[in-house]
């Protein structure tokens, strides 16, 4: 495994690293994390990505995690020294896309040997849940899965998924890396009110709670709890501290992040919400959130069956926004030793930690401890 970091975030530097990995016979696949501030566009990147012959996937994120630091500009290039299979599901939001069939065709069932599956999705796509259901059916718990949603903080959907075909949007890519991993998932958010019955929802749009406009219900609870009032331009500033929680038995709630207000009192979330489900409104205590990152790291370390070589940390961008300067403490809970840590601040996190159903989380810390041989790492 070779991992390079370019702090300039330039296409030229990326080209240099990709060329080097192309020429390295030990490297069999490439994973790229890039910051949105790099300003990569299909026009600037597509020719370069198309020139790479080895399997490549990547994503564009608001921030990257490198050497236990949050960076807002730069590119991480990860050369995978194991066989790497890649499958692409385009047009993810298109209801006519038969995700099961596409996954069958491009990826197929995994072999009997345990593998690590790394998944990147466009965080603003509307059928991420359906995609993960299909992926769970295909791979089950025999495969450790981790990943996250790409996108930019201006909340505008744009090309953010890298493949050998170029930089695209509204897609998901799956890579099977070989090797094993331990996976941990935790968020630390706690309910302050609820539960509310979802009486109207469509994909990521939450229309009504208890037959009332969702924002009306949400505002009542949040304004009372926070002592602040929603205006035309401060929604996310307040909402980043008050996500929804979907009920699960014997596990932490699955967090849904309300991203923006929709039409007719609706709320647009990161990830799907379904009619018939119940949600609580959650609130975060800084200490609990930071502790949750540690829990996730500990779960990951506890479940890896081989000697660890790398920590992959997919942490929600809204935790960054909520914790602000305290986010460094969260990183410190994951980067506790000399094991290298790389990752990204994501729009939604993906994991099937501890033998659970493969799920799309929000505002959550997902840590995977990988069995990569450390002597191959060049940071």
């Amino acid at each position, binding site marked *: 495994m070779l991992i390079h970091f370019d702090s300039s975030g330039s296409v030229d530097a990326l080209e240099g690293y990709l060329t080097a990995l192309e020429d390295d016979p030990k490297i069999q696949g490439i994973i790229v994390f890039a910051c949105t501030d790099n300003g990569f566009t299909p026009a600037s990147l597509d020719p370069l990505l198309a020139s790479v012959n080895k399997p490549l996937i990547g994503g564009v994120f608001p921030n990257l995690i490198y050497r236990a630091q949050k960076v807002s500009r730069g590119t991480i290039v990860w050369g995978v020294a194991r066989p790497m299979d890649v499958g692409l599901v385009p047009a993810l939001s298109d209801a006519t896309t038969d995700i099961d069939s596409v996954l069958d065709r491009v990826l197929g069932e995994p072999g009997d040997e345990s593998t690590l599956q790394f998944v990147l999705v466009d965080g603003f796509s509307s059928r991420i849940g359906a995609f993960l259901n299909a992926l769970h059916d295909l791979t089950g718990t*025999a495969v450790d899965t981790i990943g996250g949603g790409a996108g930019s903080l201006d909340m505008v959907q744009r090309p953010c998924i890298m493949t050998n075909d170029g930089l695209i949007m509204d897609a998901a890519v799956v890579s099977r890396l070989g090797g094993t991993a331990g996976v941990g998932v935790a968020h630390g958010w706690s309910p302050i009110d609820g539960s509310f019955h979802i009486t109207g929802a469509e994909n990521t749009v939450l229309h009504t709670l208890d037959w009332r406009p969702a924002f009306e219900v949400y505002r009542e609870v949040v304004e009372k709890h926070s002592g602040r009032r929603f205006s035309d331009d401060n929604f996310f500033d307040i909402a980043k501290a008050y996500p929804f929680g979907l009920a699960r*038995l014997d596990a932490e709630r699955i967090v849904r992040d309300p991203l923006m207000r929709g039409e007719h009192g609706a709320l647009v979330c990161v990830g799907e919400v379904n009619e018939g489900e119940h949600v609580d409104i959650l609130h975060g205590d800084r200490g609990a959130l930071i502790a949750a990152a540690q829990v996730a790291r500990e779960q990951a370390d506890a479940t890896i069956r081989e000697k660890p070589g790398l920590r992959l940390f997919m942490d929600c961008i809204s935790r960054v926004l909520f914790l602000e300067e305290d986010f460094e403490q969260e990183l410190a809970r994951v980067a506790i030793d000399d094991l290298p840590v790389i990752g990204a601040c994501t729009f939604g996190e993906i994991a099937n930690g501890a033998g659970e159903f493969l799920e799309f989380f929000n505002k959550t810390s997902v840590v995977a401890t990988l069995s990569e041989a450390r002597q191959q790492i060049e940071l």
Partner: protein
Amino acid sequence: MTNKSAQLPIQVALEIALAIGNSLDLATMTREALRTYLRKLNCHTGMIIRSPLGADPLVVAESPRRALRHPAAARALEMLRARGEDASASVLSGECEGSHFYVMPLTDYGHLMLCRSAGEFGPAVLASLNKLNAKLSGACVACEQNADLARAKQSAEDADTAKTLFLANMSHEIRTPMNGVLGLANLLLLSDLPPREHGFVQTICSSAESLLTIIDDVLHFSTLEHGQFSLHPEPTSLRAVMESVVDILQPVAQEKDLPLHLTIAGDVPAGVIVDPSRLRQILTNLITNAIKFTERGQIDVILQCPQRGTNTVRLELLVIDTGIGISDEQAARLFDPFHQVHGGYDRSRGGVGLGLAITRELASMMGGDVSVNSSLGEGSEFRVTLEVEPCAAPSEDEIATGAYANLAGMRILVAEDDETNQLVVGEMLRLLGAQYRAVGDGLEAAEAAATERFDVILMDVQMPRVDGLAATRAIRAQGTPWAKEVPIIALTAHVMEEHRDQCLEAGMTGFLSKPISPAGLSRALVQHLPRGSVADHPQLDVPTSVDPERGARAERFDVSALAAMLGNNHELLERVLDTFRDEAPKVFADLTEALEEQDYDKAARLAHRLKGTTANMTANGASKLFARLEAALSAQDLVAAEALVARAPVALDEILLADRSG
């Protein structure tokens, strides 16, 4: 928040409950339900299993695929198999490699298996699951029942399709021997038979024709019902169609002293794009019914145009009678197939209760509808509405005539495996003046066409070795100008539209359904042979008119009365009588021939002509006889027609053998 943990299992149970039974497709419903079970109960593997009594469990849904790869799932299934029917009432559970597994009964259906790494289910959760599983088993049973219904429906539809195919095949199988019966009976009628035997043969012909009418009705309805029938719209003179039908049925109405009036409104376009045959069929069905069920009063046929659009017009065809009428209850089923309101099968007219059903289907195919407004005892008004495109009316000479073709000098190849049919078709061709060569299959036909040139090829479709379609393709593939152009007319008992299309696609020029009549054969040959290569028989002249009043007074032929009418010009009398002697037997021969060929229209026209001729000859008794014959032929009352034809020679002889000295 103290009640939160207690509420959670209830919330989760509610959410799972809402995900159960959202589809009647078993695979979809169980997949969605199982995914919700797994997500909400924090399980990693699950299966819905159908457990038939005494049989191995059957996996209906599983997540992930090949769920049995997980050791806990494999262990659970093993336990289920081992417990057999004992597992139908209680929950089986255990632990395997860090996962707890549960096999829970789905009453009357099977089992739900769940595996999780997040610890055991508590008692409250298991109690909730009991209720959820009852809903899931009910939903699974409903899906299975729905699938059974769908299979039964498909089976019924398949059977219906098979019925159509059976009818088509039956039609073919009946029509083929019927061709032999009718063809040879027709030929027999042309021979010099004693009157008694002549009558027998005529009865054979009329009975066979009646049978074919019934077969055609059933087949026609079946093809309509299954959408295997298509219309052939063309520029059509509405007046010509309406008048021709009314003219034909007028004598039938007169038999019952029923005035039959046709009114065509002034704003009805002269021509429209419509299938004239099917319009004629609709009109014939309705007027025939009106006559049949009216004993006194009158029948009015009205065509009007209540609405004109930019490109189309709405036509309204009304057939109004003063007959026995029908009740509202009867009216509701009037257009149902095989339904006969007035009880029973009318042997004098034939039919099996399909006329109005066919009428409705035809009207529907033509973009229209048919309805009835009736009062019991007061009469009925049938209303057909059609949406059609107006056009210029076709000219008169575009309307086909019924004259026979003169095929003198023509060489015709007949490819037909049935020897009887070979004889029938061959003799008909000989009758029309042609020479023919008969071959027994498509291979011989192709070989004959490779060595000889024919003016036309009559090709049976179903033949041994090489069928007519393949033979046609082979002939066309010879590539010579003759082989590309020679008319090849299909002779087949198949009457389905798709068979017609197959013939045309194979390269055939035309299509002639069996049984084949000399008139039909003649028309087909005239249609497909190059214009000018076939001459029609000349039409007979109509004798000069005479005083009808005088003729009306005398029942028997009175030559002196005729002479008197001609001014006692004996030379003229001789010429008139000679002309009658030359032509009347010929016309009568044509009439009997037309009757033998089941060309009742032509026979009726010839009877009409003889009615006028004999009236002009002042032979009023003969004229009345031919008038009745005309009416009987128009109504296809073959029993009456046969009796009248038998009496006709005597009536004609009265004139032919009259003492000219007067």
